[in-house]
């Protein structure tokens, strides 16, 4: 009897505990759900607020807003083509430069560098990531843009562009389509789409390279050692073992950098030249979504303010499309590997 009571009591206690645990679990999962939903709410809230703020502009210009390159505050007519193009062009240039360089940095640090060098270089990269963008902007305006105008731009316009200083077209400009247009410029100064792309590249290299370095270190050494044992060169090990193993994380890192490049404001405002004109040349000044907003927000009112809000919404859309493309690429890769 006594034993029976004891057993019942302990069962009751167990049940109570199980109940309590279940309740706590539920509570915990609600808290977690709340955290996750908060992010979603912030995102939807921000996107919704910019869309709401920009409704006046979308309503006034309609689809024409996306394809028009006018930006005329005095007659209140606006188009988003120039800033959207500028945002995408500068970010793409930044990626074209930053991805190979970051790949090299990460490889060197994880595979090639002597151990005593790895920590200092890795911390230097992290320091670079911590520099505020206004400092990149000032460096770009005062130091890099003049250097670019004096040393890099003349070479590019003369050897690749369709408007060289001496009037003699180079072989490349004559024979390769588009290149001449891409590098032709009338302006003798350093602020341009290419300059902004290069400054952006310096800014996103730390992000991409530290992600790459982290994931390269996760590759099991037995895989690498087996490959080396079979006589592979370092490059072969990297290309055939390390990269396939870390592919999705590497792409994730690249898109993290791209996300930062798309939204970067201050540095781009300083070196992009802020000209609201569409030009095929990457040596001409342009404008990006973020720089346009930063430049014009303080004095904008009415339709212009609404247009800036609409631009902010477009930046959401552009970033979203970029993420979609990233997802799609990852899925394609997974398919390939599955075959």
């Amino acid at each position, binding site marked *: 009897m006594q034993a029976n009571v004891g057993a019942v009591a302990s069962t009751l206690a167990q049940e109570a505990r199980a109940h309590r645990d279940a309740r706590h679990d539920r509570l915990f999962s609600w808290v977690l759900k709340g955290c996750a939903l908060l992010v979603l709410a912030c995102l939807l809230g921000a996107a919704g607020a910019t869309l709401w703020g920009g409704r006046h502009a979308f309503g006034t210009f309609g689809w024409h807003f996306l394809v028009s390159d*006018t*930006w*005329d*505050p*005095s*007659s209140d007519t606006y188009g988003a083509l120039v800033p959207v193009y500028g945002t995408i062009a500068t970010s793409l240039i930044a990626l074209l430069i930053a991805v190979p360089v970051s790949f090299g940095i990460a490889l060197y640090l994880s595979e090639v560098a002597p151990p005593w060098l790895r920590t200092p270089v890795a911390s230097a990269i992290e320091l670079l990531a911590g520099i505020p963008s206004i400092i990149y902007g000032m460096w770009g*305006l*005062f130091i890099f*843009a*003049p250097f670019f*105008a004096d040393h890099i731009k003349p070479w590019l316009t003369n050897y690749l562009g369709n408007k060289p200083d001496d009037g003699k077209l180079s072989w490349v400009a004559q024979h390769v389509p588009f290149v001449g247009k891409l590098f032709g410029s*009338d*302006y*003798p*100064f*350093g*602020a341009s789409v290419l300059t902004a792309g290069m400054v952006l590249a310096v800014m996103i290299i730390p992000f991409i390279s530290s992600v790459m370095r982290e994931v390269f270190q996760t590759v099991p050494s037995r895989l690498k050692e087996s490959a080396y044992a079979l006589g592979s060169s370092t490059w072969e090990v990297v290309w055939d073992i390390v990269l396939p193993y870390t592919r999705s994380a590497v792409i994730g890192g690249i898109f993290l950098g791209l996300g930062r490049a798309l939204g970067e404001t201050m540095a781009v*405002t*300083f070196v992009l*030249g*802020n*000209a*609201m004109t569409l030009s095929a040349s990457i040596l001409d*000044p342009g404008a990006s979504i973020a*720089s346009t907003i*930063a*430049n*014009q927000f*303080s*004095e*904008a*009112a009415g339709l*212009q303010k609404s247009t800036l809000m609409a631009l902010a919404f477009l930046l959401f859309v552009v970033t979203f499309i970029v993420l979609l493309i990233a997802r799609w690429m990852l899925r394609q890769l997974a398919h390939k590997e599955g075959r």
Partner: protein
Amino acid sequence: MLTSTKYLSRIGTTAVFAAASLFGMSAHATDITGAGSSFVYPVLSKWSANYAEKTGNKLNYQSVGSGAGVAQIKEGTIDFGATDAPVKAEDLAQYGLGQFPVVVGGIVPVVNIPGITAGQIKLDGATLADIFLGKITMWNDPKIAAMNAGVNLPAKKITVVHRSDGSGTSFNFTNYLSKVSPDWASKVKFGTAVEWPTGVGGKGNEGVSQYVKQINGSIGYVEYAYAVKNKISWVNLKNAAGQVVAPSAEAFAAAAATADWGSAKDFNVIMTNASGAQAWPITATTWVVMYKKPKNAEHTKVAFEFFKWALENGQKDAASLDYVALPDSLVKKIAAYWSTEYKH
């Protein structure tokens, strides 16, 4: 507990009074807040520092841009707004606001041409407009050369530098171009930001002066103080009276004195292209915008005292920052405007 709090607060009050008497300040200091134009910010901060020393009343001024300043005064969140473009008569009437100018400054075209020093090049308004329209593209263009006999103008491309942000400086500059060039008036018009036909945009006066200094063969426009500080060569301009004038405090004052204030309601005059023989053609002012029936009577009273003091005693501070105080005739008009329009 209650008594101890009271006791503490009494100690606190005594301490504050003690501190106030120690520094010779009035115990009834009132902080007034204003926001708007960045053009007027340097001189307002200097005035407010000196005024606080004298009276203990502090002025908080946020240099957020004219548009934002006007928006904030319309919402009634500040005691005064400051704007480089006058507020339209219907807006003033709708919100019960009044406005008056406080200080005058000049905007100068600046150039970077090798071998050309400040004031060596002369331009008239139409030529300046043609350069900013992209119609004149070379420094040795016959139109420029005709005005500058004896100056060695290089066969160099002109790069136009304009403001990338909306600004009162652009407002006054484009307003001048609209007055002197029918082409500009029909194609570009004027405003704090416009659709620039050519060139590169620098953010703020600093951005424009930086680009002009960097780019060989460039022309831009900045506030006079920036041109002096950054040692950039300015251009002399032919004014409405046909005289070639150099930018100077006297020339800005002459423009302020000869602008047509008499006929305008609420001082709604943009004083570019003023008629005086010595007037600098791109002279600008900043208007202070305040409620005619104050929402916060005490603050508004202090604000009035501040501006009265500034208009009467602020000339030296203004001059040290390359602004120009308003001419006496205009100060009298403002005083009359205050007594008829404002109730305080």
